[in-house]
């Protein structure tokens, strides 16, 4: 079992230790994660890459508290997730984690402004109004605040999702293929937003993607294959990532 242990002096926003996730039982069981340990340091933009079925989405879901591990532990900050019941997990997601999904990120009955404020409203708090105001400018949607999601383009919808993810100033934002449904220009905008959020406001972002161009916006890329962490790459470029990915396609 190859387990790459990473030691850093920077505090971690999220991490998993010896994460194992098995779906199903007996002969039908699938080992989606086969013992992964990885840290996502505070203030960093990390991309998780890997071929289909490598377990990258499962890793993200477990790290974000959307799914539970079969064994091993997942942490958000200092909180160990397996000890939390559904209610506490929900509150943790609401208060300390942000999400950007590939599609269907917004509640169709709520306006843009309401969607952005959704986690705060669910918590019943006001949140940091200046921060939210600034966010709205950053994502460039001030003139769309009272529109419904159906009146926005796909790129605009993802920008609203990004704003929503950061609205509560969470410890970490998880993005699952955030550009998967967008054309390249809109995708660029969304990735730029995520990058700027990390670099200008010291937020932490973990993004799952299979697109080398998207991964190139991250500070670091971790590569998964067959449920294992196989490599890490600092300061990635699209070409370097593409080369590394090609290696997976060589039958071993």
């Amino acid at each position: 079992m190859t387990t790459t242990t990473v030691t850093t002096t920077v505090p971690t926003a999220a991490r998993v230790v010896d994460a194992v996730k098995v779906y199903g039982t007996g002969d039908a069981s699938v080992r989606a994660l086969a013992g992964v340990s990885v840290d996502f340091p505070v203030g960093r933009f990390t991309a998780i890459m890997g071929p289909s079925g490598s377990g990258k989405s499962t890793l993200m879901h477990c790290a974000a508290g959307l799914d539970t591990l079969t064994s091993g532990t997942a942490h958000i900050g200092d909180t160990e997730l397996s000890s939390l019941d559904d209610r506490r997990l929900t509150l943790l997601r609401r208060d300390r984690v942000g999400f950007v999904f590939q599609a269907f990120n917004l509640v169709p009955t709520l306006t843009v402004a309401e969607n952005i404020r959704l986690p705060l409203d669910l918590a019943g708090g006001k949140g940091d109004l200046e921060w939210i105001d600034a966010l709205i400018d950053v994502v460039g949607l001030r003139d769309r605040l009272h529109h419904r999601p159906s009146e926005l383009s796909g790129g605009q919808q993802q920008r609203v999702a990004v704003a929503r993810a950061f609205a509560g100033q969470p410890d970490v934002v998880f993005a699952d293929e955030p550009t998967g449904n967008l054309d390249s220009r809109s995708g660029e905008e969304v990735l730029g937003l995520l990058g700027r959020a990390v670099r200008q406001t010291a937020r932490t972002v973990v993004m799952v993607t299979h697109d080398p161009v998207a991964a190139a916006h991250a500070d670091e890329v971790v590569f998964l294959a067959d449920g294992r962490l196989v490599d890490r790459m600092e300061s990635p470029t699209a070409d370097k990532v593409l080369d590394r990915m090609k290696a997976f396609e060589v039958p071993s």
Partner: protein
Amino acid sequence: MKATNPMNRMNAAVRLSVSSLRAHKRRFAGTFLAVFLGVAFLAGTLVMGDTLRAGFDTMFGNATSGTDAVVRSADSITTPGESEGVREPVDTDLVTVIEQLSGVAAAAPDIQGAGQLVGRNGDPIGGQGPPTLAGNWITDPGLNPYRLAEGRAPEKSGEVVVNKGTAERGDLKIGDTTTLRTPDPVKVTIVGLATFGGEDGMAQVTFTGMTRADAEKYLTARPGEAASIQVRAGPGISQRELVDELTTVLPDGVEAITGQESAEENTDMISSQFLTVFTTFLLVFSGVALLVATFSIHNTFAIVVAQRTRENALLRALGASRRQVTAATLVEATAVAVTASLAGLAGGIGIAAGLQALFPAIGFPFPEGDLVLKTLSMTLPLAVGVVVCLGSALLPALRAGHTAPLAALRETAVDSSGASRARAVTGVGLLALAIGVTLSGVLLTPSLWLAGTGATLALAAFVVLGPVASTTAVRILGGPLDRLRGVTGALARRNALRNPKRTAATASALMIGVAVVSLFTVFGASLKATMDQTVARSFAGDVAVSTPSFGAGGSGLSPHLADAVQRLPEVDTAVGLGRGVAEVDGRGRALTVTDPVALERTFDLGTVNGSLRDLGTDGIAITEKEADKQHLTTGDKARLTFTDGQTQTFTVRAVYGQSELAGDYVITRDAWAPHRTQDADTLLAVSFKDGVSTDVGKAAVEKVADQYGNPEVQTRDEYAQSAAGGIDMMLTLVYALLALAVLIALLGIANTLTLAIHERTRELGLLRAVGQTRSQLRAMIRWESVLVAAFGTVGGLALGGFLGWVLVRASDGASDSAFAFALPPLQLLVVALVGLTAGALAGLRPARRAARLDVLRAIAAE
């Protein structure tokens, strides 16, 4: 490839629908229940009616098998509101004439009157509807419909035979002595018990048989009068031949009918008395259930079809014809319709059997015999159930057939049709028309027909306007939710607003249930208010003595009671109101027979034109309303024809403003005496002298009343409320039945919500992912349910209130007595709360299911 034959094509449709039904069993539960209840109540009503009729047929057939002809006077005077007319008596001397005819084997006079027995506990037996009869015990067993079951026939004065049912109810046995109110109290000793046609009695009618001398003394105004003469034919003479022979000797105004005709008349009369109460309730409920069912069915199928758009589109893309897709949905509807209707039919037979078993248990003899299942009462409910179900599913089925093959490729299949402008215009037009028609039917030219049309139009307008109104209504009703429940409330409200058509259709079912409940509530309260107002306005006395006065029941009060009470030192005035019948200008009218001077002192008659002081034996007082109708004023002459066939001219000496308790025509006891039948007062009004407290006075009157068969003595308030007792009982029955209609509506709401949740799976997953707790999600769905229910409830209250007002106003216009309109705030509030609570309950299960959704799977769902 060969073209498939139609059989195969249809098989494909059937296969599709069967698999769909199996997959959505739960979804059809509400639809099933609605059709089931509607059909069950319809079938139950019909079967019970047939069974009762057959039972009474047999009973009367048995009872009167020895009577071949009945001789009676030909004319009867029927007053408005009475089902049976009053007949002039026949002369008993005719018996001797008849007996001498060659075809006659035997003849006996049948003397009949009112006589109410007092039970062992001192309370009178019966009187709450069915007649309490007394008569002569006919000694010829063939002519007497009653048969001695125990004991012997009465032989001397004071001895009586009582039918078994009555004896049981009053806990009386042979040898017991009790009081018979005729209405003058008569001490009687029971010497025998009788059956009627093999039963313990003629339904709930009580019968006391006395000697002929006693009957003539107590039940008729003068000896020599009988209600009819029962005749038996000699051997070999048919009933028809006997009647023909009798007709030759009968004087003018006296007729003979065959025994069979007489039995049929009796059957008709008694079964209609029996049936109207139950059939009306059950049929109204059956109608409401079926109406609610149409909405429930339409909604379920509309949603199923909307959800299945992609599936249907795929079928169309693969080559299924429009017809096949439509047929698949219709076959599904037929399957639901037929199973539910058949189950309903079985349920209906069960209801009839249950009632047959239940009635005797609560002292309500139901003629024995098997249930009668006629073809019509089997096929009609079945046909109604199937037609309602198919009719409601037709539009959704056609829509399914019109699915474009391309719809398979579209992103979502969510039906989000809104309210069109045309709908708003049509709805508002309908509503305006409804209000116009109703108002003109209520205010301008009082007409029940116009008012009814208006009410129906109003219902239609509400249904058409539903989707338009639902948007505004939910926005307003849900307004406070945002503030109270924050984002959860806002989400609930907007979810309810998402699909106005669906929200409206879902709420419509509840709306109809609530509307009918509030209609009855308002009408009941108005009736009570009317009674209150009547008593408050026109009854100036302190206590009232009355006997139950529903229908023909009870024997009334002894005419001597008034005099006895008048002699009490506490009493200022005691006035008894008797009831007489006469034709005024050819139309049957009820007369009030009383002391007009005392009447004026104890009742507020409004403005009196002329004077009631000296009506004498040829004077009459009339209400303004009747006087206007007959174009009479003081000094005019009015011709009255009495039941004894005599016509007398009366002079109108007074016209008074208010009738209500006093009645429309007043004559003196002296004027009535020559024409009187069995004397009885219906009400005794007593006012006390100054300084006598109600309690003291009431106790004194009670002591006297006790000697006259113990009728109830009531204070003014008690008297006003006693009339309301019957109304409350009726309302309870109505509420129990309508609770079922509301239940059907609730299942509809739960159904719609479940389907909506299914459509919104991804959205719910998203909400959970970004931090909506399970309890917040449950609350969101429950509130949506409450909002839909609130819309239905408010609409129902408005519609029911309006219809109630229409009904009250129309009744006011169409009847002689003034109706008061009352909106009972407390009861209506309870109705509203029940509606809202019901909504919250309907949302429970869908909410629980939604909360169990797995977040990840929900996000990934298509």
